[in-house]
C-alpha cells in the first residue's frame, strides 16, 4: 500500500513544480469525481456489511471443507461471487482451507470469482458502465473462473 502513497505524493510534487494551476485543476477533478461516485460506494459498503454478516468466514470454511469436487466448485464460485474481501483476508483463508484438505481446484474457483466477479460492486460498475455491460462482464468473468479452476484441477491432478 505504501507505494501508492509514495507514488501519489511524488506525482503531486512534480505536478506542483511544473504547474500550480494544473495541479489545482487535477485536485478539483479528483474531488468532483470522488463525490459523484460516493453514493455508489455507500451502497456497496452497506451491501458488503450485510452480506459479510450473513456469510461469515466460518460458513465458507464449513461448506468448502467437506464436499465432493464439483459441488465444491459450485459452492466456491457462488461464495466467491457474492462476497467481497481484501486479499489479506482472502488468501490466509484459502491457506487454511488448503491445509484442511480442500482441493486447489475449488480454491481457484473461490479466489478467482472473489477477485473478478463483483455482485457487491454492482452499484459502482453500473454507475460507470451501465447495467448491460456490468452483467455481461460479470458473466464472462464467472466463466473464466470456472475454466481456470478446471485447468488448475488438471495441473494438480485433481480431475480424473
Amino acid at each position: 500500500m505504501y507505494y501508492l502513497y509514495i507514488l501519489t505524493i511524488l506525482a503531486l510534487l512534480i505536478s506542483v513544480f511544473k504547474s500550480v494551476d494544473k495541479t489545482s485543476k487535477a485536485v478539483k477533478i479528483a474531488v468532483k469525481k470522488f463525490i459523484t461516485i460516493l453514493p455508489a460506494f455507500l451502497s456497496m459498503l452497506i451491501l458488503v456489511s450485510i452480506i459479510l454478516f450473513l456469510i461469515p468466514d466460518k460458513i465458507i470454511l464449513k461448506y468448502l471443507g467437506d464436499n465432493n469436487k464439483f459441488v465444491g466448485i459450485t459452492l466456491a464460485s457462488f461464495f466467491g461471487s457474492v462476497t467481497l474481501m481484501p486479499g489479506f483476508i482472502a488468501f490466509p483463508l484459502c491457506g487454511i482451507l488448503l491445509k484442511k484438505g480442500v482441493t486447489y481446484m475449488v480454491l481457484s474457483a473461490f479466489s478467482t470469482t472473489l477477485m473478478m466477479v463483483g455482485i457487491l460492486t454492482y452499484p459502482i460498475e453500473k454507475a460507470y458502465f451501465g447495467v448491460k455491460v456490468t452483467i455481461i462482464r460479470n458473466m464472462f468473468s464467472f466463466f473464466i473462473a470456472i475454466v481456470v479452476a478446471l485447468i488448475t484441477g488438471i495441473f494438480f491432478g485433481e480431475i480424473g
Partner: protein
Amino acid sequence: MPLGNKIKIAGLFAYICFVAASFILNFNPGKLIGANFYSFSIEMLKILPFAFILIGLFEVWVKRETVEKHLGTESGFRGYLWTILLAGTSVGGLYVAFPIAYSLHSKGAKLSIIFTYIGASAICRVPMTIFEASFMGIKFSMIRVLASVPLVIATSIVLGNYLTKRKYKVLPGK
C-alpha cells in the same frame, strides 16, 4: 426527486437507524453489521483518495493523443501488453479499477483495452499475487495467472467488438 432516489435515501436512513439502535440496545447482529461497515470503509479510505488524485493528475497531464496511440483503436497487441503491465502495478480491487478504466476510456482507450484492464487488475496485481503465492504456492499462482490472462484478453475483445458494433457509449460525466 426521482422515486429511485427516494427509495435509496429511505434505505440509507433505515440502515443508519438500525445500526444505531443495535448499538444502543446491544443487539449483536446489528453491531456486527456496523463493525463490518466501519472496517470496510477504513480499508477503502486508505486507497480511494490517493487513487482519485492520481486519476485527476492523469486527466490533466496525459495527452489524449498519447493514450489513443498506445491504447486506442490502432494500438494492436502492444496495447494489451501495456494494459496488463499497468494493471499489474495497481492497487485495490475492482472498485478502484472501474474509475481508472473509465478515465482511460474517456482519454481514448478502446473498450477491449479497458475491459482487459479491469480483468487484469482484478487477477494479476503483482503484490497481491506474491502474497497469494506465499499461502498457496508458486505453482498455484502461476497457473492461475497464466490461464486467466489470455481468457481475460479474449473475452474483452469479444465484449469490446460486440459493444462497438452496437455503438455503445459509456455514460458521460462521472
